[in-house]
């Protein structure tokens, strides 16, 4: 511990990622609000010709928030958490410093290029893997750079045992590398164009039909696992104990939950393909393993909640603790909801409906969004050496966003179940009761409500951005780094 005082952690890369995370958060979520509005008010789809249609914008939203906002938050917090728990500073190694900087700039450029190319319609069509092959190559390069930095930093550590957070960041790096490469196996078609003036950007998947679906959802499900889940658990394992000054409740539970999650997660991918043409045993396995998944998921969530044992009053005094505890609670909600949707008979109704985006967003808004914002808030006084600008703004933000999330998922629950029931309803003569358009029109109020909820969340995010900006530029300067609770001006 005493060597701690001498290490000057270098946060220059952390600051870059913090900026990008906020920027892409604003862009990605604004597009989210736009596409939510388009489903409520379809005329809005036709304002910008082909570039403004729902179909073109949706991947901008998903890629913007997943790879821009979330991955930015993950890598940014890694460079912070990694240095501190490994007890090394990036400034000790000019090489790693360079790698980390390149990691940032290539990531940043890739996301900007993604916005442009997806907007122009260059897409492989696979969810969360829409980027065409030249961008895939870029992604692989900066992902490898991140890995070099990570293992390099681990190699230089002064702390013998690696901390739980690092296990999770490491799992995320390894799994995404594997998944991304296998799912994006594609051949650029210009190689076989003969003398046809074909597009350089286009590629074709190495897998066909059912196999392609299998690989895609093996990837898609686990992109959720290793982008929206494991690294976020890594964050909470560091930031919650640090901010609250409490020790993690149970080491044993950390170990069990970690290895349990790693073992089970990949098996559950089949739940995206229930009643499809993939083999039955895979569907059954996906369904069953999804239920098992509750155990390790709740294991780490409970471990986090119990970390607050005896210190619950901090919920009243610190909005940061509030963000993290609610994040953990939303994590529990979505990890019980997901397995319910994976039960075959429930899935028969839920699949293809709006309940699925509903489920996605109680996880991403409540868990991922809240944890990333809380982590950036916690880091701010350390990386800018200034007090957080406004506690009351943070409190207001908390309530606005929480209301937004509740509106989002409740409206989508109702919408999804309504839709699912109407599609399968029969009249007394044995014919389908509703034409498809009936099931579209009935959703209008719920789509509107979702757009309102999303707007609340976006407003909260803008308040967060403002608060961070003011902290960095106008917060009271701190003469020494706070130990635990982040200092904030009222």
């Amino acid at each position, binding site marked *: 511990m005493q060597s701690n005082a001498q290490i000057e952690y270098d946060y220059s890369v952390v600051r870059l990622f913090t900026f990008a995370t906020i920027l892409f958060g604003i862009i990605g979520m604004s597009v989210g609000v736009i596409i939510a509005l388009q489903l409520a008010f379809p005329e809005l789809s036709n304002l910008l010709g082909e570039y403004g*249609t729902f179909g073109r914008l949706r991947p901008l939203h998903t890629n913007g928030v997943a790879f821009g906002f979330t991955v930015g938050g993950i890598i940014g917090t890694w460079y912070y958490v990694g240095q501190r728990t490994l007890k090394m500073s990036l400034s000790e190694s000019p090489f790693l410093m360079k790698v980390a900087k390149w990691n940032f700039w290539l990531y940043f450029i890739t996301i900007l290029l993604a916005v442009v190319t997806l907007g122009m319609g260059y897409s492989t069509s696979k969810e969360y893997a829409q980027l065409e092959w030249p961008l895939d190559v870029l992604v692989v390069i900066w992902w490898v750079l991140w890995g070099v930095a990570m293992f390099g930093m681990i190699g230089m550590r002064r702390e013998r045992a690696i901390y739980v957070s690092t296990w999770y960041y490491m799992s995320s790096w390894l799994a995404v590398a594997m998944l991304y490469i296998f799912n994006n196996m594609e051949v650029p078609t210009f190689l076989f164009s003969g003398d046809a003036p074909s*597009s350089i950007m286009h590629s074709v998947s190495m897998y066909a*039909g059912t196999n392609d679906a299998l690989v895609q959802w093996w990837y898609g499900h686990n992109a959720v696992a290793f982008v929206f889940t494991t690294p976020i658990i890594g964050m909470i394992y560091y930031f919650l104990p640090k901010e609250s000054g409490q020790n993690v409740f149970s080491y044993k539970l950390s170990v069990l939950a970690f290895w349990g999650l790693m073992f089970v997660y990949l*098996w559950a991918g089949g739940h995206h393909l229930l009643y499809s*043409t993939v083999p039955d045993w895979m569907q059954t396995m996906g369904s069953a393993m999804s239920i098992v998944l509750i155990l390790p998921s709740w294991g780490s969530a409970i471990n986090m909640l119990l970390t607050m044992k005896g210190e619950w009053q901090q919920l009243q005094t610190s909005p940061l603790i509030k963000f993290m505890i609610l994040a953990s609670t939303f994590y529990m909600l979505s990890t019980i909801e997901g397995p319910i949707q994976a039960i075959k008979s429930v899935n028969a109704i839920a699949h*293809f409906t709006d309940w699925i*985006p509903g489920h996605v967003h109680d996880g991403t808004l409540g868990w991922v969004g809240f944890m990333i914002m809380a982590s950036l808030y916690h880091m701010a006084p350390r990386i800018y050496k200034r007090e957080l600008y406004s506690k009351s703004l943070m409190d207001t933000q908390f309530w606005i966003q929480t209301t937004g999330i509740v509106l989002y998922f409740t409206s989508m629950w109702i919408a999804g179940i309504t839709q699912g029931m109407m599609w399968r309803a029969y009249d007394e003569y044995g014919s389908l009761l509703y034409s498809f*358009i009936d099931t*579209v029109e009935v959703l209008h109020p719920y789509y509107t409500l979702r757009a309102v909820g999303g707007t609340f969340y976006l407003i909260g995010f803008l308040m967060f951005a403002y608060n961070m900006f003011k902290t960095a530029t106008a917060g009271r300067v701190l003469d020494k780094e706070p130990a635990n609770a982040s200092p904030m001006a009222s």
Partner: protein
Amino acid sequence: MFHWLEQRPFFFAVVLFLTVAFAGFIEAIPDFAKASQPIAGLKPHTVLQLAGRQVYIKDNCLSCHSQLIRPFKSETDRYGMYSLSGEYAYDRPFLWGSKRTGPDLHRVGNYRTTEWHENHMMNPQSVVPGSLMPSYKHQFTNMADLATAYANANTQKQLFHVPYDQKGMPKLGSWKEAEAAAKAEAKLVAADMKNQAVKDAVAKGQVPEIVALIAYLNSLK
């Protein structure tokens, strides 16, 4: 054991990787070959249809439409026969989608016509009041990318042995031949359309996106 691993990050990473990865291999390998067998009589898409499929991907119709009919009465009554694995054997990428803001399209070729699509794509609300599908006017003026569709088909033929140029299968040939064939096919589609600008373009040897898209939609059966 866990303590030991936590102090040896390299082994930790190896054990971790194996734990995560092995499920994938067990799941993927046994059925991979079987799932790729085409049903009898399945034909790969023509170049024009592939160009239309590329439009379908470019405008991301799959963000609202599925192409997978599940084996339930309520779905077969609405959309037709449930989907079979072998029907997708030449689909690269697969286009099952994951959400039905709009109806399934796997067999839309059975119950919608060129003329219907033409009106609907131009202005969905005029055909189906209350629809929230965007209008796709730009497809009437943008030109389809036949060259890339040809490269697409040729890659599939050369690399994945998709049976183009075989007996009873669509002909591919050289780029020049394929281009001419696609334009001839476009003329047949345009004959059923009434938009004058589109008809003129096709007569001049151009292929607007909408023509290719409709050729593709008509092939979904």
